[in-house]
C-alpha cells in the first residue's frame, strides 16, 4: 500500500541509476521526493490504529468507558510525541514567552526615568575662588566638586570616591584626600596613592572665561589647565564627567 511506495520508488530509482557514479545520491533524492507522497496516504492508516474521537459512539456512557480506559493505559510506543504533548509544549512555550515579555516590561517599567545630563549643568565659579597653588582645595557643594590648584594648573575634581561612592575628605595634616569608608588616598591633583580605589579621582570638564564671557581655554579633558591671565570665572560642566585614569 501507501507505506511501500517509498522503498519501491527508491528501488526503482536504484535500478535505473545503477551504472551511474552518483547512484546513492540519486536514490536518496528520490526517497526524499517519494516521502511526502507517502505521508498523506499513511496518516489515515495511523489514525485507524486508535479509535478516532469522532468514531466514538456519542452519548452512550457505557460505550465511552472502554475508550477512556484505553486512553489511560500507558502508551504502547513512548517514542513519538503525541499531538496533546506537542500542544502542551507549544502552550508552555507561549506562556514562557509571555512571562519573558512581562519581565522585560517590568524592567523598563522599574527603570527610573531621567534624561542624560539631567543631574548636570554648567556651574560658574569665580577664578578668585580657587586656592593658591598647592594650597588646600576649596569645595563647591552645589556641583559636588573640589576646586584644586597645583603646579600643573587648576582642575575641578568630583567629590565622590572612585571606589564605592563615599565623599572623601581633605586631610590638612597629610596634604591628601582620604576616604573615610575604605581608606583610599589621593594626592591633591586626584592621583591615586593607596587603598582599594581602582582609579584616580574623576573630574568635570571646565573652561576659563574672561569678564565679558569669552572663552580663554578649550573645555578641559580631565587634566589640569594653567590659569590664563585675565581669567574672570570658570564654567564647570557637571554633566560631563571624565573618569580618572586607572592605575592598573
Amino acid at each position: 500500500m501507501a507505506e511501500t511506495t517509498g522503498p519501491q520508488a527508491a528501488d526503482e530509482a536504484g535500478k535505473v541509476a545503477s551504472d551511474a557514479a552518483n547512484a546513492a545520491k540519486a536514490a536518496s533524492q528520490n526517497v526524499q521526493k517519494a516521502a511526502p507522497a507517502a505521508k498523506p496516504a499513511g496518516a489515515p492508516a495511523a489514525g485507524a490504529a486508535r479509535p478516532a474521537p469522532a468514531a466514538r459512539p456519542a452519548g452512550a456512557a457505557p460505550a465511552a468507558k472502554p475508550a477512556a480506559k484505553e486512553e489511560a493505559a500507558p502508551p504502547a510506543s513512548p517514542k513519538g510525541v503525541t499531538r496533546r504533548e506537542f500542544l502542551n509544549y507549544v502552550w508552555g512555550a507561549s506562556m514562557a514567552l509571555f512571562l519573558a515579555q512581562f519581565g522585560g516590561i517590568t524592567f523598563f517599567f522599574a527603570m527610573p526615568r531621567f534624561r542624560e545630563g539631567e543631574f548636570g549643568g554648567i556651574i560658574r565659579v569665580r577664578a578668585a575662588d580657587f586656592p593658591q597653588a598647592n594650597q588646600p582645595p576649596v569645595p563647591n557643594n552645589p556641583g559636588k566638586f573640589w576646586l584644586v590648584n597645583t603646579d600643573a594648573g587648576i582642575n575641578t575634581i568630583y567629590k565622590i570616591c572612585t571606589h564605592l561612592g563615599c565623599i572623601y575628605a581633605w586631610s590638612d595634616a597629610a596634604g591628601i584626600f582620604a576616604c573615610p569608608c575604605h581608606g583610599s588616598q589621593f594626592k591633591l591633583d586626584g592621583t591615586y596613592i593607596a587603598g582599594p580605589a581602582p582609579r584616580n579621582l574623576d573630574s568635570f570638564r571646565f573652561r576659563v572665561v574672561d569678564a565679558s564671557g569669552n572663552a580663554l581655554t578649550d573645555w578641559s579633558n580631565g587634566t589640569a589647565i594653567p590659569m590664563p591671565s585675565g581669567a574672570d570665572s570658570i564654567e564647570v560642566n557637571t554633566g560631563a564627567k571624565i573618569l580618572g585614569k586607572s592605575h592598573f
Partner: protein
Amino acid sequence: MAIIGQKLAKQLKTTGVKATVAQRLDDGFTRLTSGLSWNDVRSVLRGDPPAKPNPRVKPHTEGFWFHIRPTFYHEAVTALYPTFRLGLLSALFFTLEIITGIFLMIFYTPAPTIAYVNMIDILTNVPFGKFMRDLHRLGAEGMVIIVTLHMLRTFLTGSYKKPRQFTWFTGVVLLVVTLFLSFSGYLLPWDQLAFWAVTIGTSMADAVPGIGPQINLLLRGAPDIGAGGLLRFYLFHVVLFPLIGIIFVAVHYYKVVRWGLSLPPELEGIGEDNARKVAPDKRVNFMPDILTNELMYAGVAFAIIALSVITWYGGAPLEHHADPLVTPNHTVAPWYFYWLQGLLKIPHMIPLLPGGIASEIDKFFANVLGLTPKVFWGVIIGPAMIGILFIVPYIDPNPSRRYKDRKVMLGIGGIFTAIILYLSLAGMPTGVPFTGFGFVGADPAAEVGQHFIPDEGVGPVHALPFHQYVVGTHTVNAAPNTGNASMDGLIREIHNDMENRKTNADPLGRKLSADANATLDVHQVQENLIRVTLTINYTDDKGAAAQFQKLTYLHEQSGYSAE
C-alpha cells in the same frame, strides 16, 4: 432553612434547650479547632493521655496551622540539644518583626522630606514608639544572629545531609532574605548611617561587570540615592523580601514536616534516617507536650527581648539627617556585613605580596580579564562565600553525620568561620589587631577629635553631664584643675589619649607631633546651652604649625547622659 429548623426543633424536643445549645456550641468549637471538641481540649490542657484513635492528630491533618508542624517528635530531639529550638526562634523573631514593623509603618512615610521627621516623631511623640522601634531593631539584629546560629547548628550536626539537602537550600535562601531584610531597613530612617551604608551597598551592585549600572539604577531609582531610592528600598523592605521570606518559610516548614527533625547523629546508623520511623514509646506528641513547650519558649523569648530593650539596650541609633555631601568619619556597614567591608578593603587581587609584584598582577588581571580587585573581592568572592553555602549538601560526599567521621568538613567549617571573623575585624575602622589590615583613620589629631567628639553617635564629651562642665578655656594637661572632678577626668582622658598617639604610631605609621598641645573651651551660648570646642595645635608632616578644631553643642536636656 426549613430543614435546619426542623432538625433544630426535633433536637430541642428530644434533648431539651440546655443540651442542644451546649451541643451546638461544641460543634462550632470543634470547627474552629479543626476537630477537637471542648472536652478534647480540656484533656489536652490536663495532660491526659490521648484517646484511641488519637483525636489530637486531626488538627494536623485537617487544619492549616498545625499541618505545618509534625504530629510527633522523637524524644531525643525534644531536649535543648540538638536543635536548641533555633529554627522556632527564627520564626518567632520573623513574626515579631512583622508585628512591630506594621506598627512602625503606621507612623512612617517613605519620602526624604518627611522620613527623618517621622523617626523623631516615633521616638518622642508616639506612645511606645521608641519601644517598638527598639524592638524592631534589636529583633532584626537578633534574627541575623539566630538564623546564623541555626545554620551553624545544622552544619555541626550534619542535618543538611540526605534527605534534607533541599531543606538546607531553602534555609540559605532564608539567611539571604534575613540579611537583605535587615539591610533594606537600614535606609528608612534617612539618617547619615542609612544613607552611606546604602550608598556603599548599591555602589557594589554598580561594580558588577556589564549589568551593574542597570542594577544600580533599578535599586536607587536615580543615579544617586534620593526619593526614588528611599521608596524602592521601602517597598523591598515591606513587600518584596517579606513575601519571599514567607514563601520560603512555608517550604522550609513543609520539608520539616515531611522529613522530621534529624535525630542526634549518634542515635542513627551511618547513612540512615530514622526521624519518621519512631517507635511508639519514643514518640512525643506535638499536642500537648511540644505545643506547650513552644508557647513557653516563645513567651520567654519575647520577655527577654522586651526586657533587653527596656534595660541594657541603649536604643536603636538615629544619626544626623542624611547629608549627601558629607560622609562621616568611621562610616561602617552594619556589623553583619563587616566581613564584606573587610573584603572590599583588599587593595590587590592577590594580597600579602610585595607592593610592586601585587600591582603587576593587578595590571595583568585588569588588562587581560577586565577584573579589578573591587569586582573580584566584593562582587565575586563576597557573594560566592554565601553561594558556596547553597551547595554544601550537594558536594559533601560523606554519608556519615557523626562528628568523628566528619573531621574534614568540620575543619573546613571552622576555617570558613575564622575567615569570616577575620574579615569582620578588617571591616571595622580599627582594622585587624597587630597587622593593622583594614585600618581607616584620619590623621592623629583628627582621630583625637573623632574619639572625643565623634561625627555621629555619642563620645566622651557628650557623655559628660551638662552640669559637670565648667565654663572657660581649659588647658589639656596631666593635672587639670577646673574645680570639677568629672571635668578634670575628661581632660585627663584627652591628655592620655594624646600622649598615647604621640608615642604609638597608628597602623599607617602616623604619630601626633611631640609638641602637640590642646585646649578644651566651654562657652555658655545660652542659659541652658554650651558649646564645647577641642583645639589641638601640632606640627604637621611638613614641619609647619597646624591646628585641628572640633566643636559640639550640649543642651541641658540633650539626654546623652543619664544625669
